[in-house]
């Protein structure tokens, strides 16, 4: 662990992780309801199904972002003096956004999915009003403004402390002008890169959100649908990737406490983060491989960058973690187990994602259940696992030392449920079962039955881990 100079704002971050835990369980339950409906074991109205689908998508993406933000804020608080009021405003705007989004969905009936694909918010077929869609989009804007303020504060302080953007990204080390021991901590480099690309993504997102709201108010104001789609996927892709890249800071900061070896910012590490910064911004056309109106070069770039993005993850973060584990010994407990699971889940999930990023594969896999298959692996077994690991680490002083029975049960049930649940998505995708369908044909229902069973296990495992966190918050510190 690099030397900490300041005290992180622990109370606000601990409160954030309570919200994360509660919302995750609720959103996982929404996911279970959808799978149960697809299995035929329960029957809900398609209108309600698509409302739940919209809430699940927006809720999970938002919660993943909140998890990453809390982790980044906490650990940057060790190195730079962050203004706590900014985090309080960020959290306030986030909660305001949640209220607006939930109101738009469950009171206003908005069911245009979290991707608000233009012009669907304005053309509901009579199912929701323009007002409900506008409130949903305003909810996003509220959350986006909060993230922007949070990132600007982190970015401002890192730039000041490390001699500019280049200094915080360890560019002197990259260009052979500095020594590794003088480079910023690994987590500072990750935070600076994540801050830059998430700010870019949020600004593009804000532009398309405002354009969509104007379109709702003044239907004559039309937007080019392909341009709007490009902007939505720049925003969506960057935002969810920022969540993962911010969450991995927990691995860089916490794992060294268990191995006794600092996570060094080597030259390869610094190069890989600058490459990630570029790749995350230009990779998004891999979401538009079936939009044949796109320039061919953009689609080829989407395929190639999609593959290349796996290299920094595999050869730097995953590889280094494996080296630390082999060089051990590692002190295993709930936190270290979940953080290692997080990196493993992220790495494994990239495999089906990269294959889907190939144009010839995408032609028969896009918008089948293959897609939720791969992103659930690196979100559920990646970001969520890292977030849970961070939660367990936050209350480590109030918990029994070591890897207790309940800890093992929590990780085991969560991993078994998550692996089975995501595997059923992949198998279903390979069998051409579409994603985002309320009704499933009888021959598709057995897959949903099995997935529902694994979803129950996932929720039970997650519930146990969240309860252990809450118990840790209220317990006394170990002597």
């Amino acid at each position, binding site marked *: 662990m690099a030397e900490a100079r300041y005290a992180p704002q622990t109370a606000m971050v601990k409160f954030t992780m309570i919200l994360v835990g509660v919302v995750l369980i609720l959103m996982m339950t929404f996911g279970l309801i959808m799978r149960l409906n697809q299995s035929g074991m329960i029957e809900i109205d*398609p209108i309600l199904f698509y409302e739940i689908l919209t809430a699940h998508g927006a809720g999970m993406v938002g919660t993943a972002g909140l998890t990453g933000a809390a982790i980044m804020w906490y650990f940057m608080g060790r190195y730079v003096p962050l203004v706590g009021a900014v985090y309080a405003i960020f959290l306030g705007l986030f909660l305001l956004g949640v209220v607006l989004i939930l109101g738009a969905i469950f009171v206003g009936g908005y069911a245009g999915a979290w991707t608000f694909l233009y012009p669907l918010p304005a053309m509901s077929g009579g199912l929701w009003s323009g007002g409900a869609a506008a409130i949903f989009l305003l909810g996003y804007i509220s959350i986006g403004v909060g993230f922007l303020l949070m990132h600007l504060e982190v970015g401002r302080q890192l730039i000041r402390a490390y001699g500019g953007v280049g200094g915080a990204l360890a560019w002197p080390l990259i260009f052979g002008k500095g020594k590794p021991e003088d480079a910023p901590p690994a987590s500072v480099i990750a935070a600076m890169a994540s801050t830059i690309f998430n700010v870019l993504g949020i600004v593009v997102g804000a532009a398309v959100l405002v354009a969509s709201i104007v379109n709702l108010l003044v239907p004559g104001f039309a937007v080019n649908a392909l341009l709007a789609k490009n902007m939505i996927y720049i925003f969506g892709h960057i935002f969810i990737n920022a969540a993962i890249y911010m969450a991995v800071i927990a691995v860089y900061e916490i794992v060294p406490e268990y191995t006794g070896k600092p996570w060094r910012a080597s030259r390869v590490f610094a190069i890989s983060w600058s490459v990630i910064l570029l790749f995350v911004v230009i990779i998004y056309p891999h979401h538009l491989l079936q939009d044949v109106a796109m320039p061919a070069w953009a689609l080829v770039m989407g395929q190639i960058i999609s593959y290349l993005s796996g290299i920094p993850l595999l050869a730097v973060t995953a590889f280094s973690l494996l080296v630390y584990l082999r060089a051990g010994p590692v002190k295993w407990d709930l936190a270290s187990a979940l953080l290692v699971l997080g990196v493993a889940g992220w790495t494994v999930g990239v495999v089906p994602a990269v*294959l889907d990023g190939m*144009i010839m594969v995408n032609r028969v896999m896009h918008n089948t259940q293959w897609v939720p298959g791969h992103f659930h692996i690196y979100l559920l077994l990646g970001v969520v696992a890292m977030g849970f690991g961070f939660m367990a680490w936050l209350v480590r002083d109030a918990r029994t030392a070591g890897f207790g029975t309940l800890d093992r049960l929590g990780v085991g049930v969560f991993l078994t449920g998550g692996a089975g649940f995501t595997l059923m998505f992949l198998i279903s995708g390979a069998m051409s079962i579409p994603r985002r369908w309320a009704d499933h044909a009888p021959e598709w229902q057995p897959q949903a039955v099995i997935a529902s069973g694994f979803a129950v296990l996932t929720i039970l495992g997650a519930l146990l881990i969240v309860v252990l966190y809450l118990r840790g918050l209220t317990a006394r510190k170990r002597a």
Partner: protein
Amino acid sequence: MQMTVLAISLVVMALISLVFIGAIRSGGRAQAPGSVERRRLALILAMLAVGIVVTIASLRPWPQAVAMTADTPTINVTGGQWYWEIDNTELPQGVPVIFNAHTEDVTHGFGVMNDVGRLLFQVQVMPGYVNQVQYVFDTPGEYTVVCLEYCGVAHHAMITDFTVVTNQGGDDNG
């Protein structure tokens, strides 16, 4: 195609999982730092080499190529909330068919499945654009059209079908 992709995914995912399990179970055997950096570089170079080969092999011929001649059958497909209209529902077997897909309202996804429910191809259908996709149906029979881009509350009910008929005059390669 789909089952091959699933098999490749499962094998590579299993290998990565085994590497993690191996590292966790190793219990911390020390390694020489020099060999670590050499192996990291080897991994990067190997991934780059595989990437170059796979990229070239998968993009040539261009997967979305549309080659139109004067006698290429061209089918107009219209998507709307929540229906499909196809101007010719009897398509020839064994020759390239071009679909011109456009929408009356929001974005839809024009996906075609064969009689055992296997997705053969798809293309996005977007306001303001006519998106073209080409396919050769090798087998006569019933084909199902589904919507593969979420388009509102009856998205899952946007289903229709067409028939591919034996091309008596041409080669039967089905």
